[in-house]
């Protein structure tokens, strides 16, 4: 691929032509060789027809050499340490990790210190993100005040201030009446509620998937039902209220069945899966490796395969990184006492390409779940390469191998479950609104 330019070398308004590209645009079910033309921050043309189209004057012409050009990834679940835990991650470091991982838009979770439950804080995140990053950052605001699961936040005012969706982040709203009213109230504003489904009483002191592996390790288990009963309850409440509900992270086959039934019934219900649950299982925990301690926990291999199948048939709407920076003071503990979470912005695409290389999922389906669907759910016009769309796109050499080295991750925290993993697929270049925010430099 013929580009060696540094990120800053490209002016915001210089047109770019990507020739000899494998154009993947799920919004048009497109996966074909062609050309992508970018000018004035937007897609001018993308596809075979663009090859013969007029090139904008002064355009930079890139020969992609057959590399994939796809919509930039829209990651719906990212924890950033700012405000309150800047030693783990800042907007600047998260933004660099995102751009390097092909993530052009990310949704930040509200469980920060302070909690994002006030319009001034939504505004703060918007300003910090604009100043510090080249990627798009959309704050999700808390669903309940202080994430306490009781009183709902000012959903209407927060939405006007720029909150893209509402969630209690890592927390689950256990009170069904609170969830009912929140869904009902949110419906009036068309607001999306994203919920982490894990009944705290059923989770109890569990730290990994309940079953043989946990028993052998002597660790307390978390039953799949801790997730499924909440998803099932929420779906019934979504049906009752007409609210838009998104199960943020599902991890097991039985939760997926519940979501499938809701979709078949025509409900406004969607779900996401983390790339970890698509590619890893409980056995990866091995000798108590805390970087594999996640919430929901990694499940059995059958569950992982169900997640891949759900992705392939469209039952799973989105893939997220669930990027959750933790440092040694929260991870270097006995397994049961370590914090949950893994970083993932930079490895999201490479890991998500595994089912593609295994022949389980095609590229259009993958990018639909990584970019197009999340953008639709959030009401964003990105996530597609259709003419007129914002030029948020990535160039990916999907056949290039690399080995993940945690120390080289751009994130301030290095808690990746993919340390030493062999990946196939490298992001060559990332554009946000036509501006190059990342360009791969070997070495």
């Amino acid at each position: 691929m013929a580009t060696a330019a540094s990120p800053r070398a490209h002016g915001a308004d210089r047109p770019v032509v990507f020739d000899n590209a494998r154009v993947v645009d799920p919004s048009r079910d497109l996966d074909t060789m062609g050309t992508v033309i970018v000018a004035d921050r937007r897609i001018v043309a993308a596809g075979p027809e663009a090859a013969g189209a007029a090139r904008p004057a002064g355009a930079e012409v890139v020969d992609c050499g057959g590399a994939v050009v796809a919509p930039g990834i829209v990651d719906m679940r990212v924890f950033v340490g700012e405000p309150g835990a800047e030693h783990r991650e800042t907007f600047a470091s998260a933004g660099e990790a995102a751009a390097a991982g092909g993530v052009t838009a990310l949704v930040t979770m509200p469980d920060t210190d302070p909690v994002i439950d006030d319009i001034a804080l939504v505004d703060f995140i918007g300003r910090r993100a604009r100043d510090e990053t080249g990627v798009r950052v959309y704050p999700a605001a808390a669903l309940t005040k202080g994430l306490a699961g009781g009183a709902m936040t000012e959903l209407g005012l927060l939405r006007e201030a720029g909150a893209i969706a509402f969630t209690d982040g890592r927390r689950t709203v256990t009170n069904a009446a609170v969830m009912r009213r929140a869904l009902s109230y949110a419906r009036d504003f068309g607001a999306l509620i994203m919920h982490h489904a894990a009944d705290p009483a059923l989770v109890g002191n569990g730290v990994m998937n309940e079953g043989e592996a946990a028993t052998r390790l002597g660790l307390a288990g978390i039953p799949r039902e801790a997730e499924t009963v909440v998803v099932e309850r929420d779906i019934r409440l979504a049906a009752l209220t007409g609210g838009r509900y998104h199960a943020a992270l599902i991890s097991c086959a039985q939760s997926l069945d519940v979501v499938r039934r809701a979709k078949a019934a025509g409900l406004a219900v969607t779900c996401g899966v983390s790339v970890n649950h698509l590619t890893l299982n409980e056995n990866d925990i091995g000798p108590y490796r805390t970087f594999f301690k996640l919430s929901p926990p990694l499940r059995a291999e059958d569950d992982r395969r169900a997640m891949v199948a759900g992705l392939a048939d469209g039952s799973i709407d989105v893939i997220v990184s669930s990027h959750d920076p933790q440092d040694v003071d929260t991870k270097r503990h006995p397994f049961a006492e370590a914090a949950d979470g893994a970083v993932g912005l930079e490895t999201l695409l490479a890991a998500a390409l595994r089912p593609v290389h295994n022949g389980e999922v095609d590229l259009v389906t993958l990018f639909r779940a990584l970019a197009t669907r999340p953008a639709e759910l959030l009401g964003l016009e990105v996530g597609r390469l259709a003419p007129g769309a914002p030029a948020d796109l990535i160039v990916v050499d999907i056949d290039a191998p690399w080995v993940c080295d945690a120390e080289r991750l751009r994130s301030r925290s290095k808690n990746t479950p993919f340390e030493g993993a062999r990946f196939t697929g490298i992001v060559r270049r990332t554009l946000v609104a036509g501006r190059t925010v990342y360009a791969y430099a070997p070495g």
Partner: protein
Amino acid sequence: MALMNAPPLPPAVTFGHRHLLGIEGLTAAEIVGLLDLAEAAVEVSRKIEKKKAVLRGRTQVNLFFEPSTRTQSSFEIAGKRLGADVMNMAVAASAVSKGETLIDTAMTLNAMRPDILVVRHHAAGAVELLSHKVSCSVINAGDGAHEHPTQALLDALTIRRHKGKIAGLVVAICGDIAHSRVARSNILLLNALGARVRVIGPSTLMPAGIERMGVAVFSEMAAGLAGADIVMMLRLQRERMDGSFVPSVREYFHFFGLDEAKLAAAKPDALVMHPGPMNRGVEIDSAVADGAQSLIREQVEMGVAVRMAVLEALAAHLPNA
């Protein structure tokens, strides 16, 4: 004697009920009859000598299990203008706190042989239950979130005096529909008289199945108020604005509080009403509450007239009348 100068009675009202427990069950003719009677009562109330003798010698007891200032005093004045002996009982502070049941209180009162009981209770259906146990006429002055018939009648009278009619008017009732007896009685009455009724409020304050009561449901003020002739605001209780039903006062006012900007969506000659007491800056802006389109103060005057009309209509059914 002043009574000689009383205006001629309107055409005889055929009010076929011993009690007034709700708007439900009244015919359109009965409602119109009460409104006509109330028109006459307005005239009486505007004279220097305001007394009639319809209830002379009768005993009216206002039995309020829930605190009320304006409704109770309105019934008291109405009864006194008709010549009744009126007694107020604030039960919240007396017998009930000693453990006496609703029925026991009713039986005790009944033994004192009142002619009319005006009752307000926090539980829906309590007034009707009480009416089965006493031998006098009972007027519902508000039972839970069920009905408040005299409020709906006074609202209708106020509207009719300004618009000349009820039929065909677009009436938007805004706010806490779920917990409002005023909304329910108004919906029943306005529909009976042929108005087109809308309800507007956040979904959390909208009771299930309300559309089956013959209203169009809106969750956005601009859409719900478009083309409205009458805008009725409802009071929102403080305890419902803390995140349980509505996130906060400022959010509620931003989206549902009636200010001049939102009122502009209604017809230019739209009129604004509120059953009181108002929360200024919560459901209504002072500029609107006190503005030229506001009928809020007039509603209070009509309240006395309507209650006189109801008492007069029921007087026809009192024993030995």
